[in-house]
């Protein structure tokens, strides 16, 4: 395991080094991409100057709103659908094909409905994220063992108490898988929507820099997004693994 990790580090490091050499040697022309070391330096300069903090804060806030909405609504809908069998069966075709539908195609429509503000972006992030939470919550609830449910009935727990005390904690690892996906989808949705059309946010800043051929802003921002989303996802995957192992399912 350790050696796999060090190989991985070597591969990533080696690719960055190769990119650096190619850029320095002029194989990759400077207008196309600055060398990685320059990108890093520009990022440091940018972070120190603080010019991008308002855009970052705005993007992050929208990601958090979309993500929280998706988790709350998704878990509630998952619990409700688990109890309402007919509706669940009716919605099954929707869930099965949901991620095949290009959600971003709805963005123009949402802009017309809500105007070019934060709402359409949050809705796109929410729409992408919520179904992953619902599906994983259902998956987790399906795996709760019968004995535990019988125990709940013996203790005469109401439906809400059963959900909070028995089923949700049991389903937690699976719900967490949904939550992890929701983070990724909220990021993808918000930044994608900002990139397509908006007036603020990191995605907007990237497309603005791109349209002005401003590589010294564009590349550092792209790097920032890559680093943030990788770190967040790795952390959540790690947590998920720990949780699964504790359940003896890992």
């Amino acid at each position: 395991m350790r050696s796999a990790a060090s190989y991985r580090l070597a591969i990533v490091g080696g690719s960055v080094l190769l990119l650096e050499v190619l850029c320095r040697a002029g194989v990759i022309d400077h207008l196309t991409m600055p060398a990685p070391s320059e990108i890093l330096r520009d990022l440091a300069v940018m972070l120190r100057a603080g010019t991008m903090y308002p855009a970052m804060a705005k993007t992050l806030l929208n990601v958090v709103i979309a993500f929280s909405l998706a988790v709350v609504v998704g878990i509630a809908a998952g619990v409700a659908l688990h109890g309402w069998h007919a509706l669940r069966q009716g919605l099954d075709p929707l869930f099965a094909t949901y991620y095949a539908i290009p959600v971003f195609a709805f963005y123009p429509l949402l802009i017309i409905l809500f105007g070019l503000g934060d709402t359409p972006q949050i809705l796109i992030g929410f729409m992408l994220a919520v179904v992953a939470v619902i599906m994983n919550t259902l998956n987790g609830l399906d795996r709760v063992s019968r004995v535990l449910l019988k125990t709940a009935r013996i203790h005469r727990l109401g439906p809400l108490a059963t959900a909070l005390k028995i089923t949700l904690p049991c389903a937690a690892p699976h719900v967490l898988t949904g939550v992890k996906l929701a983070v990724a989808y909220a990021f993808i949705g918000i930044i994608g929507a900002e990139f397509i059309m908006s007036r603020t946010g990191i995605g907007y800043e990237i497309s603005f820099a791109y349209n002005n051929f401003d590589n010294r802003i564009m590349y550092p921002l792209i790097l920032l997004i890559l680093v943030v989303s990788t770190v967040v996802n790795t952390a959540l995957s790690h947590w998920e693994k720990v949780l699964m192992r504790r359940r003896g399912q890992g």
Partner: protein
Amino acid sequence: MVRSRSSALHGLVLVVGLVIGWQILFEIAGENALAPPLETVTYLLQLLSTAAFWGHLLETARAFAMALALSILLGLATGFTLGLHRFSGEVAEPILVAFYSVPKITLYPIVLLAFGLGMPAKVAFGTIHGIVPIAIFTMNAVRAVSPVLLKTGRVLKLGPWEMVRAVLFPAALPEIFTGLRVGFSLTLIGTLLGEMFAAQKGLGYLLMTAIGLQNVRVIMAVTLFLVLFAASVSTLLVVIDRRLHRRAA
């Protein structure tokens, strides 16, 4: 058989429900914001009889077909290589998973700078969306193939190509197919996103110009078309997928 008929019924109820919801939304939001279902369908049919729309459609179809072919080819090759060589798989998996969850739209400027405007950039953008899920699913599928099958293959002295063709591929097919299904959707999204910027043709371009003109009817008709296409192909793929899994189980 009964099962599939009842799920077809569920699908029908769902579609009717969605159309009713759409009509209600229209009544609330008004005609400046939305077009009603019937009008959208007739407008879409009208669009489908114009040569201009077919030009955009064919452009998107060509880009999507190329991107999908590349995603499948490269995804399967990567997946089989990493699945067969356990250590490489262990090294590469977290990298693939991390890449899967990155908002790839931010890489679009880089793709554009590397490939220039036009078809190659669209195809490349579709491919980077589709290749990763196919590779991840294939890798896990190949890893999960029972060792007995592999041993049998080795006893029969199969060459590496024969091994993939006669043992690994059939054994791993259900899981691989799931990967292809996910790859299909993501490639479509990637291709469309690629067309939304810096393209002069294609459905994505049509959507972008329609936003600029606030042309609700075009937006709704194109969105409906895309949703219908994606949902029907995906339903077909889901049915095949479930059948493959049931046969394997």
